[in-house]
């Protein structure tokens, strides 16, 4: 598989009360289009990653909403929804549309507008990604991940400090990212002293409620960027699914959807976890990054927490792999439909070598990992610098 990423763009993530969804979409798209050097009329289709436009904003039909917003009607335009993995799944659909041979070039946009609404409304709407039984129990997403964290702590002696280290690292990385929601460094103590949301997860273990949009333009190989030396390709694209609710899972300390999608992606790319230089993984909660690094094959089960705490995956580490240089969902922000697209934007920019202070040296292979629900769906992409 070799799908060119011709252009990328992302808005700032955060509490953007004065910016409309249409403006966010236009900003991300125009940046990606300019980079691609393509005539917009050559785009064959638009894939929109979004979860909550209907339940929060009373706006469905997001394919047409996006095509109208960017002034590009007359194209196939469709929304892809898979909770917080909507963006990653939209990228997957974009890749498949090109692999089918029907489309030459497509736009993938991830968009979410969350901060216009009250926190309990957003928490309730996000629970649309869980099961009916979990909604009746009054669970929230921090609650669901707490249920997994509790068992991980018991089985592998993972500590609250191990989890806090994920947030500390991701805030440090975000301090170098002008698009990030939180650019303030925090300490382990800050995390441990922050208010408890759902035991054992505290406020600073949790990704925030955010607004934002990200866009990428994909094309079949052959079409290349005219004005740039470096080109980046998607060399693997996979997705998998599992039960909606935690009760249907084979394990509470591992996401089977992640393992399956990652296995397929490594197979497609003919690579192994040790070949990856940079990864953007789904750290919706601190425990989720620990589980992700284990399920993606970077660490043995129970080993990721202490490795993160030792700084092994932090920028400047002597080890090969660096994780969540954007700041991750925790500190860059988590506009749910945009996140999976933003992860690809970050990896592309890292592989091109254009991210300034947070640049990883000699990065050649990158991976993105996007999860929907408490592990009900997952999408994994592997990207390569073609030079």
């Amino acid at each position, binding site marked *: 598989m070799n799908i060119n990423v011709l252009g990328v763009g992302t808005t700032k993530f955060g509490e953007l009360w004065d910016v409309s969804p249409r403006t966010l979409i236009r900003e991300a798209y125009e940046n990606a289009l300019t980079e691609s050097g393509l005539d917009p009329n050559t785009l064959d289709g638009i894939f929109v990653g979004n979860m909550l436009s209907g*339940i929060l904003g009373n706006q469905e039909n997001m394919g047409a909403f996006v095509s109208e917003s960017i002034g590009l009607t007359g194209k196939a335009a469709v929304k892809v929804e898979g909770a917080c993995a909507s963006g990653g799944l939209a990228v997957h659909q974009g890749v498949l549309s090109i692999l089918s041979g029907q489309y030459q070039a497509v736009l993938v946009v991830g968009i979410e507008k969350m901060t216009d609404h*009250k*926190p*309990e*409304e957003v*928490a*309730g*709407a996000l*629970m*649309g990604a869980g*099961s*009916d*039984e*979990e*909604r*009746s*129990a*009054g*669970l*929230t997403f*921090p*609650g669901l991940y*707490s*249920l*997994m964290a*509790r*068992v991980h702590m*018991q089985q592998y002696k993972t500590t609250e400090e191990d989890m806090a280290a994920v947030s500390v690292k991701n805030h440090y990385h975000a301090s170098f990212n002008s698009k990030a929601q939180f650019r303030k460094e925090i300490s382990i103590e800050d995390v441990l002293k922050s*208010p*408890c*949301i*759902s*035991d*054992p997860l505290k406020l600073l273990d949790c990704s925030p409620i955010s607004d934002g949009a990200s866009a990428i333009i994909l094309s079949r190989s052959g079409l290349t960027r005219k004005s740039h030396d470096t080109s980046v390709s998607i060399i693997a694209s996979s997705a998998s699914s599992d039960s909606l*609710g*935690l*009760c*249907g899972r084979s394990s*509470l300390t591992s996401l089977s959807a992640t393992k399956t999608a990652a296995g397929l992606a490594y197979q497609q790319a003919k690579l192994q976890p040790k070949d990856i230089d940079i990864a953007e993984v789904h750290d919706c909660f601190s425990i989720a990054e620990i589980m992700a690094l284990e399920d993606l094959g970077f660490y043995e089960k129970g080993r990721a927490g202490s490795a993160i705490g030792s700084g092994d995956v932090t920028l400047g580490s002597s080890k090969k792999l660096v994780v969540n240089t954007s700041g991750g969902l925790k500190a860059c922000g988590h506009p749910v439909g945009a996140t999976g697209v933003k992860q690809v934007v970050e990896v592309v920019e890292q592989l091109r070598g254009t991210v300034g202070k947070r640049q990883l040296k000699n990065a050649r292979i990158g991976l993105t990992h996007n999860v929907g629900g408490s592990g009900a769906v997952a999408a994994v992409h592997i990207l390569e610098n073609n030079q």
Partner: protein
Amino acid sequence: MNNSPVKIWRNQPKIRSLLGKVGRIISYTTVRVPPAGFEDQAPYAVIMVNLDDDTCYTGQLVDYEKNHLHIGQKVQAILRRVKTPGKEGIIPYGVKFKPI
């Protein structure tokens, strides 16, 4: 989110089939920041239970002391109001658990 009376009615047999079942806690948390409809109950404990018939169910733990909130605690399914009634006026009942 609304409480569809039809949906509540359709779920009655499932609730009835669970009542009285016994099992053990396999994980637990205390929700301190609730979603809409649960504001008047927070903070509340939510547990995952491995029932004696080897099925799993997730629900709130009620009528408990702090020492009951641990993995392995024996619990029983009971009938309780689950959330604030909506404008339809129907009280949504469902399954919660109590320690035994």
